[in-house]
């Protein structure tokens, strides 16, 4: 569910023409692109795109008279010899490397309607989706001439070859393939454009000729057609090299299944010989109606593999990368993997009844093909059932051929079947069930009534292509048609099985009976369907033939289109099931720490985690696709060629589709945080995408204006990037590999959210800054902690359960109530100061309890130095005593309440020491704890505020907070204050407190923040000065009085200093963030920001950026 609309959004963003992919895969079932449809129709590799198309008439030379014999004469008369040869009207298409013709009138032009592009997905009438015509690699064109005729404006004569000189007239060799005459029918301009494109392609095609020779030599047809049928094969070529038949699978050694006489193998070979003589072979094959008929009656053993390759299109993959199989094996030789272990277990149970797999030879081939595939497609790796399918393929195919067929199966014909979640399998089971329900409602009702789950029976049919269910000879017949016509065949056959066994199935009331009915039917497939018939012809019809008739006649209406439609209909529900299963499993696996979080929170984290990964993947793909499109990259990486990975691209990352990434890098982590914590949202977004969010404008304009507006953060808030976040990432990254798993995230968050224990949360925070884990945080760390506290609180702190959660209102110095946020900011600024005053010098003697105690007893005294706001605890004479009750376990804090006020002077001397860079200082955990506990606001922050700043399921962050991180939230948090500006709040000198009229709370808080920043800046400045003095050889600094004076009197200067140069970079950053957040991040705040801009230079810069961005959008 949670990913559902993401998917839709992503799909809206994807221009279907950009992303290649298999038709009918989940990827494309919603909206297959024209390029996908094109590739699918002509079985082309994913590298091919429809470049040009034109209506054309194909003329094939007339059937030679000597073919007569047993050739079927029932040609479709309308296509038959008009004048000379056979004419077909259809569409001619050109891709980068292929010239394709089909009588199916499909169009893939930009202007074509979807139905024109997908016409072939309808009924195929036994011709296969590609129709009559050809899929001709351009390297197979030997010569192309423009015919000069009077009647035809543009007629081309195409001479093709298979890479070898043709025989004939006493010369040895296979006959030359037919000359194709193609008459283009279009405007002169269209014809010329097409021809120009073709010429370019042909020039490129020359490079592929070597590949073609390699591949053709491995084709049995090349060997087979060398001689006439019925003669003994010529033993050697004219040059004396011996002719050996190419590898046609294990069957040539261990026998092909079935009785070849009964299968009439020799007659089939004769028919194919005749067919190929007229129509070419392998690369040059032309599909005429007999091609489809010859497949329907079952392929002969020696040509079966080659025709599978051609009709599935794996042949064209092999043509592009003929050596990929061998190279892959060599490359990974000796390597091990999980897949390999799993493969090994199954080798002995893959068609063990076939002799070839009782031998090392067969087992070895099976092992190598499965292993090679697991290397080129590690995402699939190895899935049980692949062993059976590949074993079956290997009976007819060489290892290398089987490898490419397996690729086509996994990527195109059986999308998602063998993936790690097997979503494709589950989806097609759902589709099958719904087809049964539609076409055989009585059987369906019976199943439902008896609680028999159809898919437990039908799943192996699909997963192993009936190979594991039917006797092999019949399973291969199904495969013959499946490769030609596509996945719909599996459904048609499955429906026919149920239809034929309908009556018996209606008697079955449990899984067992159901299964045994079908099992015995499969065992009888070779028997007569009408054993008692008088008519011998009827008696001769086998159950299998009857099955084929029912499948392809009665269920003719089940087309690829039906399947695609049904897939997209059920996809959501199926993926959701898988996802909820995966989620349950995953959450149970999160380890002991996860028990600290509620189920709801874990579920929330799981969703958030994978949503972020998923969205990021989507975006990077969209951006990548955009880049690709710009570059017009025609050719892709070699691995993609075979794996078709981009084909599955648009939805990768969705949990149910299998693992893509399950780890979060730092950027993903930032995005993750931005979704759960408002402090993690940046104050100065660089992406303009939000401007446009009203209505559907975002996506609409994103499509128009994609490159300009595609934010790397998508529609979500842009995350901040802060030292604190980096530290958090590092801490959570327990494995130290700069990536977080869900478990890392949960384990990292559990102590924060789960403990509800102030001491451990203080410690957690401290450890974040204790870089070398020596129990000390140095001066730099103190600054960073302060800065982090400001960073975390800059959008307000959701107080909550802490002791200070305003039962009584805390008053500001002017007697007006302070909001929690104000309190917090003032507390932080006090904290910064105290830290430096009470930090321990880096001497062993100062690291003890005394040190901490000395610090503590001075707290009250110095409370008021910086901000009058600090006077909020008048009633607390001994705040520590009180605090110690909530921190009873801490002896350091418990003790000093008795010996309160120490010598201010010495303390201040220490403070000075703390500011003196020549004597390093640090705070220890006890000191830090004490400083936190000494302040109610901070105490509350660590008690609950920090934990609450991560919004998980139990307290979801309102979406408004997520999308418009702005000061609005503070208004909401403290509405009573928004109307009462507190102009005198700043102690930083008369000027600092001046707030532009009407700015209200925001201006006031700005001042407080500025104070906080100023203190940090001051500390820094003093350090720098001290350093300078040291450099100059000066030994001492001014008295403490002077120090204080400086604090008080030079506030203005400090402010300037803070904003000019003296501020360390990161402070500048934080300051900038704090100052301009409300201006830049929210358009509604921009106005207010402009009035404030006079005070803050960063603010006006922010404005400037803003303006610039909006003009970019207007373009």
């Amino acid at each position, binding site marked *: 569910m949670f990913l559902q609309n993401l998917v839709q959004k992503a799909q809206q963003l994807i221009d279907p023409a950009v992303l290649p992919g298999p038709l009918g895969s989940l990827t494309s079932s919603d909206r297959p692109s024209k390029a996908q449809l094109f590739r699918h129709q002509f079985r082309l590799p994913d590298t091919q795109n429809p470049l040009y198309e034109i209506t054309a008439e194909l003329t094939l030379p007339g059937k030679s008279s000597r073919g007569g014999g047993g050739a079927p004469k029932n040609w479709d008369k309308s296509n038959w010899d008009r004048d000379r040869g056979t004419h077909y009207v259809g569409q001619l298409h050109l891709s980068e490397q292929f010239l394709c013709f089909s009588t199916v009138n499909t169009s893939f032009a930009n202007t074509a309607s979807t139905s024109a592009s997908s016409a072939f997905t309808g009924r195929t009438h036994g011709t296969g989706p590609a129709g009559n015509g050809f899929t001709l690699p351009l390297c197979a064109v030997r010569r192309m001439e423009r015919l000069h005729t009077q009647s035809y404006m543009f007629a081309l004569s195409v001479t093709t070859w298979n890479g070898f000189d043709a025989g004939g007239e006493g010369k040895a060799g296979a006959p030359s393939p037919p000359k194709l005459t193609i008459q283009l029918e279009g405007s002169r301009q269209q014809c010329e454009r097409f021809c120009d494109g073709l010429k370019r392609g042909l020039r490129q095609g020359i490079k592929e000729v070597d590949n073609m020779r390699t591949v053709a030599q491995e084709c049995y047809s090349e060997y087979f057609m060398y001689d006439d049928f019925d003669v003994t094969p010529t033993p050697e070529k004219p040059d004396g090299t011996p002719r050996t038949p190419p590898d046609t699978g294990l069957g040539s050694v261990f026998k092909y299944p079935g*009785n070849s006489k009964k299968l009439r193998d020799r007659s089939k070979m004769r028919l194919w010989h005749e067919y190929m003589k007229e129509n070419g072979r392998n690369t040059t094959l032309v599909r005429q109606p007999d091609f489809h008929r010859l497949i329907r009656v079952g392929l002969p053993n020696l040509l079966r593999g080659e025709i599978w390759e051609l009709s599935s299109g794996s042949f064209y993959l092999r043509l592009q990368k003929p050596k990929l199989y061998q190279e892959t094996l060599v490359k990974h030789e000796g390597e091990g993997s999980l897949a390999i272990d799993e493969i090994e277990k199954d080798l002995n*149970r893959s068609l063990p009844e076939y002799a070839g797999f009782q031998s090392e030879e067969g087992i070895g081939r099976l092992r190598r093909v499965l292993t090679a595939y697991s290397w080129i497609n590690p995402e699939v790796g190895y899935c*049980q059932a692949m062993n059976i399918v590949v074993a079956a393929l290997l009976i007819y195919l060489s290892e290398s051929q089987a490898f490419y067929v397996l690729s086509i199966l996994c990527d195109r014909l059986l999308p998602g079947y063998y993936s*790690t*979640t*097997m979503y494709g399998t589950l989806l097609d089971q759902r589709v099958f069930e719904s087809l049964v329900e539609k076409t055989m409602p009585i059987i369906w009702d019976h199943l439902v*009534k008896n609680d028999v789950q159809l898919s437990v029976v039908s799943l192996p049919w699909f997963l192993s292509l009936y190979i594991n269910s039917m006797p092999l000879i019949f399973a291969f017949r199904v495969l013959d048609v499946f490769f030609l016509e596509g996945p719909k065949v599996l459904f048609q056959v499955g429906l026919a099985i149920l239809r034929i066994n309908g009556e018996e199935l209606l008697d079955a009331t*449990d899984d067992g009976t159901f299964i*045994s009915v079908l099992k015995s039917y499969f065992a009888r497939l070779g028997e007569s369907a009408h054993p008692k018939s008088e008519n011998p012809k009827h008696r001769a019809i086998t159950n299998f033939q009857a099955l084929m008739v029912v499948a392809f006649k009665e269920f003719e209406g089940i087309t690829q289109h039906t399947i695609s439609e049904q897939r997209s209909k059920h996809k959501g529900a199926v993926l959701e099931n898988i996802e909820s*299963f995966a989620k349950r499993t995953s959450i149970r696996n999160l380890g002991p720490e996860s028990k600290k979080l509620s189920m709801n929170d874990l579920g929330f984290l799981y969703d958030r985690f994978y949503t972020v990964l998923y969205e990021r993947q989507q975006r990077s793909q969209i951006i990548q696709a955009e880049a690709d499109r710009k570059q017009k990259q025609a050719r892709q990486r070699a691995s993609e060629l075979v794996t078709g990975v981009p084909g599955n691209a648009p939805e990768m990352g969705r949990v149910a589709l299998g693992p893509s990434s399950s780890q979060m890098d730092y950027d993903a982590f930032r995005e993750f945080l931005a979704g759960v914590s408002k402090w993690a949202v940046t104050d100065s977004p660089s992406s303009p995408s939000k401007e446009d969010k009203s209505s559907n404008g975002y996506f609409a304009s994103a499509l128009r204006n994609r490159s300009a507006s595609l934010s790397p953060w998508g529609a979500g808030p842009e995350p901040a990037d802060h030292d604190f976040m980096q530290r958090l990432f590092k801490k959570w990254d327990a494995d130290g590999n700069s990536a977080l798993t869900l478990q890392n995230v949960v384990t990292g968050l559990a102590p924060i959210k789960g403990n509800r224990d102030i001491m451990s949360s203080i410690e957690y925070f401290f450890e974040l800054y204790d870089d070398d884990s020596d129990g000390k945080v140095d001066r730099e760390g103190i600054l960073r902690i302060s800065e982090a506290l400001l960073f975390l609180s800059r959008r307000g702190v959701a107080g909550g359960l802490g002791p200070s959660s305003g039962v009584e209102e805390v008053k500001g110095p002017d007697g007006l109530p302070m909001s929690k946020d104000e309190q917090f900011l003032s507390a932080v600024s006090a904290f910064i100061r105290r830290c430096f005053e009470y930090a321990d010098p880096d001497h062993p003697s100062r690291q003890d309890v005394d040190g901490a105690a000395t610090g503590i007893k001075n707290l009250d005294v110095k409370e008021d130095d910086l901000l009058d706001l600090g006077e909020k605890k008048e009633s607390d004479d001994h705040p520590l005593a009180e605090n110690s009750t909530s921190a009873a376990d801490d002896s350091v804090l418990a003790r000093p309440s008795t010996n309160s006020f120490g010598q201010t002077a010495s303390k201040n001397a220490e403070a000075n020491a703390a500011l003196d860079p020549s004597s390093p200082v640090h705070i220890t955990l006890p000191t830090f704890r004490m400083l936190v506990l000494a302040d109610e606001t901070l105490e509350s922050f660590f008690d609950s505020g920090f934990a609450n700043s991560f919004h998980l399921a139990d307290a979801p962050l309102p979406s408004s907070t997520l999308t418009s991180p702005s000061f609005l939230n503070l208004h909401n948090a403290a509405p009573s204050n928004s109307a009462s500006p507190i102009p005198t709040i700043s102690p930083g000198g008369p000027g600092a407190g001046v707030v532009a009229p009407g700015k209200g709370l925001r201006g006031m808080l700005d001042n407080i923040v500025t104070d906080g920043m100023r203190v940090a800046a001051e500390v820094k400045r003093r350090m720098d000065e001290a350093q300078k003095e040291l450099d100059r050889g000066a030994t001492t600094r001014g008295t403490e009085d002077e120090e204080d004076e400086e604090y008080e009197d030079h506030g203005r200067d400090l402010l300037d200093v803070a904003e000019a140069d003296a501020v360390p970079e990161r402070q500048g950053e934080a300051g900038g963030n704090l100052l301009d957040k409300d201006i830049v991040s929210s358009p509604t705040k921009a106005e207010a920001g402009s009035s404030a801009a006079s005070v803050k230079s960063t603010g006006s810069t922010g404005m400037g950026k803003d303006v610039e961005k909006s003009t970019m959008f207007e373009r």
Partner: protein
Amino acid sequence: MSDGAGATAPKPSSSVKLVLLGEAAVGKSSLVLRFVNNDFQPNKEPTIGAAFLTQKCQLPNRTIKFEIWDTAGQERFASLAPMYYRNAQSALVVYDITKPSSLVKAKHWVAELQRQASPGIVIALVGNKLDLCEDDNAEAEQADAENETEEEPSTARKVSTKEAKAYADEESLLFFETSAKTGHNVSEVFTAIANAIPETSLKGPRSGAGGGTQAAISAGQDNNRVNLNARGEAGPKEGCAC
């Protein structure tokens, strides 16, 4: 189709759906094979999704016919599991006592079943491959009380009986340690499950089907069993042996 069973007064017979779950290679298929065929041999049949088998279990007062779904071992088939445990009245969750990770996986399956399967499902936790721990082999149960097995380096045992038993008790599971290889405790597991299935939850006559159908199934059982002993739903590969 001889009605031998019908000659004597038939005991009430009911079928019980049982699903086997557990990490790959813990011995699920071997356990089923031992139970159904009293045999132990390398697994020759590929399991696509799950293999279906049946076997009867005679109790003093009734006959239970187990319809067993032996699920495929590979991890990715886990997402198919709901298809098989759906409506199961009993489950055998198997781990390998020499492999601690398999117990972890078993616990996940138990949690999954408790949350997602039919309420009241009878779950047995089974530690298999007891034969590999020769020391406490046959007397495992008795000996274990005194023997802290994990402290004995001489056995291959990596999961102590105590630990697994404690977990089983906590989750109210039946618990056995078995060896599919020797047959130790195998039929006991199934008998215990048969006994634990509450009479009320037994699949009575299916809605609308009536007792007649039920009787018909029982009559056909002997036939079925012979058939199904060949394991799995795969048909004989008639064409390929020539």
